[in-house]
């Protein structure tokens, strides 16, 4: 069995694979993630592709996560479970459920729960010249942002908004787009995103919320409110001293924070640039 290693923060995940189609999925998902040293070992995975049955078989440890012929679903299941596996032991910094971008080395952190619109904003801002770090998982360590640079997992609402705004076709499966059942995985390069190799310091916090009924608005929020929201998006709290309480407050004190409601992308770029400039 061949081994593929995915490392982020201080955690390394091993994926045993067999079959070229399995390797193609791993390269599609993780090719942009640089290797690292001095890591903890998390759960291991196994991804096989059976040429005979034309199906993928995905396990985490001994648990079957997927068996079927859809590459996109296998990829999405692996991605979700692998991110969970990374977050469980991670203790080197604050690991947020967040997107992040950069503009002239200004780090913009967008924490939010699933459905908040992080991925849609990441894709759109990347297409408009912002550096791309991640649409899902961000590590804040030593005052710098590091992103888990996976393909963008775009839900249906985001697909509609992005197709309209960018003209990029997301409904047809191909080398860059995989259908996942919940939406699509799309390479960030589809949006001409420049993967940000520098580690920018966080200078701006935006808590996004997509809401079809609310016009675009960008509202400053207090530091205490920011701390509360950051804590709710911190996914490795249990591994940190006092659940990262001290570090969360230090971050909230040092960075301006805003709530962004949006139902279309027209005003997003000007709104964000108005804050980073």
């Amino acid at each position: 069995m061949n081994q593929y290693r995915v490392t982020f923060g201080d955690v390394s995940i091993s994926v045993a694979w067999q079959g070229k189609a399995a390797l193609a999925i791993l390269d599609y998902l993780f090719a942009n993630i640089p290797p690292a040293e001095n890591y903890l070992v998390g759960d291991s995975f196994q991804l096989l592709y059976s040429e005979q049955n034309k199906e993928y078989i995905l396990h985490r440890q001994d648990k079957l996560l997927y068996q079927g012929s859809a590459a996109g679903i296998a990829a999405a299941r692996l991605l979700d479970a692998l991110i969970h596996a990374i977050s469980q032991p991670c203790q080197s910094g604050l690991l947020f459920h967040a997107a992040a971008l950069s503009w002239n080395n200004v780090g913009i952190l967008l924490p939010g729960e699933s459905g908040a619109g992080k991925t849609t904003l990441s894709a759109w801002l990347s297409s408009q010249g912002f550096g791309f770090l991640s649409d899902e998982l961000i590590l804040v360590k030593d005052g710098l942002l590091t992103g888990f640079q996976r393909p963008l997992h775009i839900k249906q609402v985001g697909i509609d908004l992005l197709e309209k705004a960018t003209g990029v076709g997301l409904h047809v499966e191909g080398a860059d787009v995989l259908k996942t059942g919940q939406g699509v995985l799309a390479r960030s390069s589809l949006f001409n995103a420049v993967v940000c190799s520098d580690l920018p310091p966080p200078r701006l916090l935006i808590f996004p919320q997509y809401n079809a009924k609310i016009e675009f608005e960008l509202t400053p929020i207090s530091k205490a409110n920011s701390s509360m929201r950051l804590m709710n998006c911190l996914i490795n709290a249990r591994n940190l001293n006092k659940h990262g309480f001290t570090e969360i407050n230090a971050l909230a004190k040092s960075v301006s924070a805003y709530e962004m409601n949006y139902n279309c992308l027209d005003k997003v770029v000007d709104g964000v640039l108005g804050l980073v400039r």
Partner: protein
Amino acid sequence: MVYSSRLFICTVIAPVKAIDDIKPSQIPTPKQGYQLEALDDELFLYDIGNTQAIHLNSASALVWQLCDGHRNIQDINTLLQDAYPDKRDQITQDLYDSLSAFLAQGMIQLA
């Protein structure tokens, strides 16, 4: 500290206790064990055991700080009325709203 805004707690998930159930003679006692950080004139509270994060704006932070397990609700109301005489009409309602939300969050007990 300016008593300027109404209660704002972002994480209310339980039903709010009826304000009529709160009596002026009762003594609110804060639950122990919160990590607490004052940020400007607001508070961020975090309960590690329940992974519960709470933001209190300036008004509710002030009420929280007056809930010391010794003063009863009438005492707290009087203190606030004396401190902010121009807000007398609003203060009692805000106080009871805050206490009601604190109860719903399990942040205080009434004795």
